[in-house]
C-alpha cells in the first residue's frame, strides 16, 4: 500500500529541515574554528609554547677557592642525586618518599640516611613548593643506591635520579672554619625566592663561602627545554635564554702546607694558630682545632653527629682564631713596655724583683716564687718578670697602656665590614625592642670579635665603677679584664716586628683583596727595637734552624683565681686540674730576627704553660713557614688554563 504523496512531501520538508539543522551545526563549528584557529591563533600559539617549553634554572658553576699556591680548597664534585616531583608523585608522595628513604644506605655511624624528621620536612617542603619544582630527597647518594632506585623507578612515580654537582672540600677539617661550607638555603633564608628554593642551589653558610657569596655564586642562567604534559623533558635540544655566568674563582692568602703543618702540630689540642705576613698582613694560616669536616655539612649531617659536634667541650664548630677571646697574659707585656717607654721609663732602669709586691691591701706575685732579682726592660721581657711590669704599668698608667694595646691592634675588629656593622646594629635594636631577629639574619661570617682593652673610662661607662689602682698592675701583665683574639695577638706581633699598621688579609684577588699598603705606626723605632731585642732573648723562641732565629714571647693566662690559701699550700699543677680550669698556653713570635717577615700566634685553650705547650707548636709551624717562604714564592695566578681547574679534578 503506497503512502499518499502529501505525506512524502512532509517527509521531504522534514528531511530538508534536519539537513539544514546539521548544516547550521557545522556552520557553528566552522565559526568556532575560525575563531580559534584564525582570530585567536596567536594567543594559542603562545599558550602552546608555554605548554611545550619549561624554563629551567642553570646554576652557575660556583667559584673555586684556591690557596696562595693554587691548591684547591673548595671545588665542585659530580654526584648522584635523587629528587621527586610532587606533582608527578601525586597523592602517593609520602609513600614514595618513604620508599626512597628505605632504599638509601645508612650513614657510616649506622643512623638512617633520612630520619622521620627529615622525611617530614621534605614533605612539608613539597607542600609549600610549586608542584613541578623537584624536591631534593638526598644529594650525594652512592652508585648502588642510585641503581636500586632506578630499578624500582616504575613504582616510584615522580622520582628522578640525576647527576649534579656538590661542593667539595678536599682538605676536610683543615680549612673548615675559614672556608666554611655551603648548604641549601633554609626556609627563612629562601623566603619566596624561587632561585633559593631550587634544589640545585647552595649558598655559603659560613666562612669565605658566606663572606664572598656574591663573587663565588656568579649569575645563574636559564634554558628552555621541551617538556611533555607530565613535565618530562622530551628532547636534548635546549634553548639558552640566559647563559650562566660562572662564579669568580678566589685565591686566598692561606698556604695549605703551613695550615696542614699547624694542624699536625696542634694534634688533638684545642688550639688557635695564626701565621701572618708582617709586611702585607696576608694570613698564611688561620687554624682552629678541633675542626669538623665541611663535606659532612654539604652532604647533610645526621642529628647525632651534629649534636656530638655541638656539645663537644672543645667546640669544634667555633672559630677560635677570630671568635675566641683570651686573656693575653705575658704576651701583652710588649704593649706595657712600649707604653712605659712612651711615659719616659728608661729601658736600663733597674727594678728589683723579690717575687711579690704588696700593693694596698693586696699582694701581687711574680710567676717565679723566689723572684728574679734586679731587672731592666730587656731582661724583664726575656724572663717575663711580673714584678718589672707591675712597675712599668704604674709608670705608664692605664690610659697609655690601653692606647698602645689599641695601636698594636687589640680591642678592635679587623675583618669588620659596613654590612656586618649594619647587621649587628639591627640585631641589637631588635633585641632591645624584645623581638630578637632569627639567627640567619644576625650572621656575619668571618667577622672577628673585638676583644676588650679596658681603661678607666670603659670601667666607668660599662661597669659604673671607678678604676682601682691594682687593675693597672693586672693589665700590665696581660690579665684582668683584658681579652684578645689569637688573630689580634698575631697582628700585635706583626706590628711590633714591622712597625707598620698591618691588617690581616685573606684574599689575593676578587672584591675583598686589600686595597692599600700598610703605613708606619706612630711608635718610635728605637722603642720597638728595645722590645724586639727582649723578644729575641726569650729562650722558648729557639727555632732550631741553622742561621735563622726567631723572636717570641710566652704567655700563660690564668682562668681561675688562686687564693692566698692555695698559694700557701702550693699552687696546684695544671695537670692536676680539670681541663676547663687549666691555664691557657700562649705564644707569639716572629722570624727571622734580622729581617722579620712572618709572625705567628698560638693559643692552646687550657693547654698549660706558654713555653711548654704553645711554643713548641709555634716552632714547628714557623720552621715550615720559613722553609717554604711563601711570601717570596711565585704567586699563583688565575689564567684561562687553570680557571675552573678544580671542577673536574
Amino acid at each position, binding site marked *: *500500500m503506497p*503512502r499518499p504523496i502529501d505525506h512524502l512531501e512532509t517527509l521531504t520538508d*522534514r528531511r530538508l529541515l534536519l539537513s539544514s539543522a546539521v548544516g547550521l551545526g557545522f556552520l557553528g563549528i566552522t565559526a*568556532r574554528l575560525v575563531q*580559534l584557529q584564525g582570530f585567536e591563533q596567536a*594567543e594559542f600559539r603562545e599558550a602552546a609554547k608555554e*605548554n611545550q617549553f619549561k624554563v629551567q634554572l642553570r646554576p652557575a658553576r660556583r667559584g673555586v677557592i684556591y690557596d696562595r699556591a693554587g691548591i684547591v680548597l673548595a671545588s665542585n664534585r659530580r654526584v648522584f642525586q635523587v629528587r621527586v616531583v610532587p606533582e608527578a608523585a601525586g597523592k602517593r608522595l609520602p609513600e614514595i618518599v618513604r620508599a626512597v628513604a628505605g632504599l638509601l644506605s645508612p650513614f657510616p655511624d649506622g643512623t638512617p640516611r633520612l630520619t622521620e624528621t627529615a622525611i617530614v620536612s621534605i614533605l612539608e617542603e613539597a607542600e609549600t613548593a610549586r608542584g613541578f619544582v623537584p624536591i631534593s630527597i638526598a644529594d650525594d647518594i652512592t652508585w648502588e643506591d642510585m641503581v636500586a632506585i632506578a630499578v624500582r623507578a616504575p613504582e616510584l612515580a615522580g622520582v628522578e635520579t640525576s647527576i649534579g654537582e656538590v661542593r667539595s672540600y678536599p682538605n676536610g677539617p683543615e680549612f673548615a672554619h675559614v672556608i666554611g661550607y655551603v648548604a641549601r638555603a633554609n626556609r627563612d633564608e629562601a623566603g619566596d625566592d624561587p632561585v633559593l628554593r631550587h634544589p640545585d642551589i647552595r649558598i655559603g653558610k659560613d666562612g669565605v663561602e658566606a663572606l664572598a657569596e656574591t663573587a663565588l655564586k656568579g649569575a645563574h642562567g636559564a634554558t628552555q627545554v621541551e617538556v611533555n604534559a607530565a613535565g618530562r623533558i622530551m628532547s636534548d635540544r635546549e634553548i639558552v635564554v640566559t647563559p650562566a655566568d660562572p662564579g669568580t674563582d678566589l685565591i686566598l692568602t692561606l698556604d695549605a702546607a703551613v695550615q696542614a703543618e699547624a694542624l699536625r702540630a696542634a694534634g688533638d689540642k684545642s688550639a688557635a694558630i695564626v701565621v701572618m705576613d708582617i709586611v702585607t698582613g696576608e694570613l698564611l694560616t688561620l687554624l682552629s682545632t678541633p675542626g669538623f669536616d665541611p663535606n659532612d655539612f654539604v652532604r647533610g649531617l645526621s642529628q647525632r653527629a651534629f649534636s656530638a659536634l655541638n656539645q663537644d667541650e672543645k667546640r669544634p664548630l667555633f672559630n677560635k682564631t677570630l671568635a675566641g677571646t683570651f686573656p693575653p697574659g705575658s704576651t701583652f707585656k710588649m704593649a706595657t713596655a712600649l707604653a712605659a717607654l712612651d711615659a719616659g721609663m728608661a729601658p736600663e732602669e733597674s727594678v728589683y724583683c723579690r717575687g711579690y709586691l704588696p700593693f694596698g691591701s693586696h699582694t701581687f706575685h711574680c710567676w717565679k716564687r723566689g723572684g728574679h732579682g734586679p731587672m731592666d726592660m730587656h731582661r724583664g721581657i726575656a724572663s717575663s718578670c711580673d714584678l718589672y711590669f707591675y712597675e712599668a704599668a704604674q709608670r705608664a698608667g692605664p690610659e697609655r697602656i690601653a692606647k698602645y694595646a689599641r695601636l698594636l691592634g687589640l680591642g678592635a675588629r679587623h675583618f669588620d665590614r659596613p654590612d656586618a656593622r649594619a647587621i649587628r646594629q639591627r640585631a641589637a635594636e631588635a633585641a632591645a625592642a624584645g623581638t630578637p631577629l632569627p639567627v640567619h639574619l644576625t650572621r656575619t661570617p668571618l667577622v672577628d670579635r673585638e676583644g676588650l682593652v679596658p681603661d678607666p673610662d670603659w670601667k666607668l661607662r660599662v661597669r659604673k665603677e671607678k678604676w682601682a689602682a691594682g687593675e693597672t698592675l693586672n693589665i700590665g701583665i696581660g690579665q684582668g679584664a683584658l681579652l684578645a683574639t689569637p688573630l689580634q695577638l698575631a697582628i700585635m706581633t706583626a706590628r711590633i716586628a714591622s712597625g707598620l699598621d698591618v691588617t690581616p688579609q685573606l684574599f689575593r684577588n676578587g672584591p675583598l683583596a686589600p686595597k692599600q699598603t700598610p703605613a708606619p705606626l706612630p711608635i718610635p723605632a728605637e722603642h720597638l727595637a728595645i722590645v724586639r731585642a727582649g723578644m729575641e732573648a726569650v729562650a722558648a723562641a729557639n727555632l732550631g734552624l741553622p742561621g735563622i732565629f726567631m723572636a717570641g714571647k710566652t704567655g700563660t693566662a690564668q682562668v681561675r683565681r688562686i687564693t692566698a690559701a692555695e698559694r700557701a699550700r702550693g699552687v696546684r699543677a695544671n695537670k692536676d686540674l680539670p681541663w676547663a680550669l687549666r691555664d691557657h698556653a700562649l705564644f707569639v713570635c716572629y722570624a727571622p730576627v734580622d729581617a722579620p717577615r712572618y709572625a705567628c700566634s698560638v693559643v692552646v685553650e687550657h693547654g698549660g704553660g706558654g713555653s711548654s705547650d704553645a711554643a713548641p707548636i709555634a716552632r714547628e709551624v714557623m720552621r715550615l713557614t720559613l722553609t717554604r717562604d711563601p711570601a717570596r714564592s711565585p704567586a699563583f695566578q688565575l689564567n684561562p688554563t687553570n680557571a675552573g681547574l678544580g671542577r673536574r679534578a
Partner: protein
Amino acid sequence: MIPSLGAGGRRGAAWRFEALQALDWPLFAVLAVIAGGGMLMQASISGGSLDPWAGAHGLRFLMAVGVAIVIGLTPLPWWLRLAYPIYGMTLLLLLGVEFFGDERLGAQRWLQIGPMSLQPSEIMKIAIVLATARAVHDTPTALLGSLRASLLPLGLIIAPVGLVAHQPDLGTSILVAISGLSIVFLSGLKWPVIAVAGLGGAIAGPLFVMFGLKDYQRERVLTFLDPGRDPLGAGYHITQSKIAIGNGGWTGAGIGQGTQSRLDFLPEQHTDFIFTALAEETGFVGVMVLIGLFGFVFLRLMAIGADCRNLFGRMVASGVAVTIISYVLINMAMVSGLIPVVGVPLPLVSYGGTAMLTVMVGIGLALSARNGAAMTMPPMSSLI
C-alpha cells in the same frame, strides 16, 4: 543472518553478486579516506608508529567494512522483521548491565559474556534506529505524525535512554535519544506536539542538570561554563584542546609536527580528542576537508533515504545519517569547547572498535535500504 541461507538458491547468488557490484562504492571510498585520516592521526600521536593504535585502527576498519557489506547484502525485509527482536535483546542486555555489568572508569557500561565484553549501549544506537523505524513503518498512514502514533516510538526511546543515562553514560544516552527522536521528527510529528515537547524539555533540562546528573557530570557542565575554574582538573581537557586547535592555525603545524599532540598534553587523545590532533597538524584547511567528507556521507545517506519507496528504508537510512552526523557534530563541538565534554568519539577517526563497528553496521543497514529502495513493503502488524 547469512544471506546464502535465503530461499533464492542460484538465482539468489546472482542477485547478490549484482548487489555487491551495485553497493555504494563511492561512499565506501569516502569512508576509507576518513578512516585513513584517522589512522594517520593515530600514527602521528604515537610518534609515527603503527603501534599501538594506527595499525589496529586500519585493520578494524577493513573488518568493519566486511561487516557493513554483509549487512548491506542482507535483504531489507529481514531487518524489518528483526528490528524488534534486536531492540528487545539489546534492552535486555542493558538491563543486564544494570544488574551484572562491569564497572570501568566509574561507569557501568560493559557486560561480560564468556570471553566477550560487550557494551550494549553501543548496540542500542543501531537498535533504536531499527525499532523506531519499524514503529513508524507500521503506523497506519492516517495516523502518521499524530501524537498518538508517536507514543510507541517515544516509549521505545525513553526506556534505553533512561537505562544508558543511569550507567551513567550521558554522551551515549544523548546520541540514542537524538537517533530515535530524529526518526520521530522525520516521520512527520506535528509541530504543535513538537512545540509542547520542546517547552517541556526546556523546563526539564536545567532541572535535570541540577538534580538528575551525577556529580562528575554536573562538574563537567559547570566547568564548561568556566574552564578557568580548575585548569588542572576538569577544565584541563577543554583548555588544552583549545590550545592545540588554536595552535594549528589556518594551515596546521604539519603531520607529526603538532607539539601539543605529540607531547601528551591531551588525555584520551587517540580516542575522543583525536580531532585536536587533526586540527593542530592540518589546521583549519584539514578540518574543513574532514567536515566536507562527513557532509558527503551524511547527504549520501539522506539521499538513500529519500530514494526509498518504503517508509522503513527511509527511516533507517535517515536515522543512520543522523546518528553518524550527531557523533561528528557533538564530538567537534565538545573538543572545540562549544558544549561540555560528554565522551563521544569522532566516527572512524577516533580509536575504538565498538564505535567503529556501530558506525559501519549503520552504514550496512543504509546500504540494505538502498538495495531494497524499490520494495514497497506493507506495514507489519500494527501495534497501534
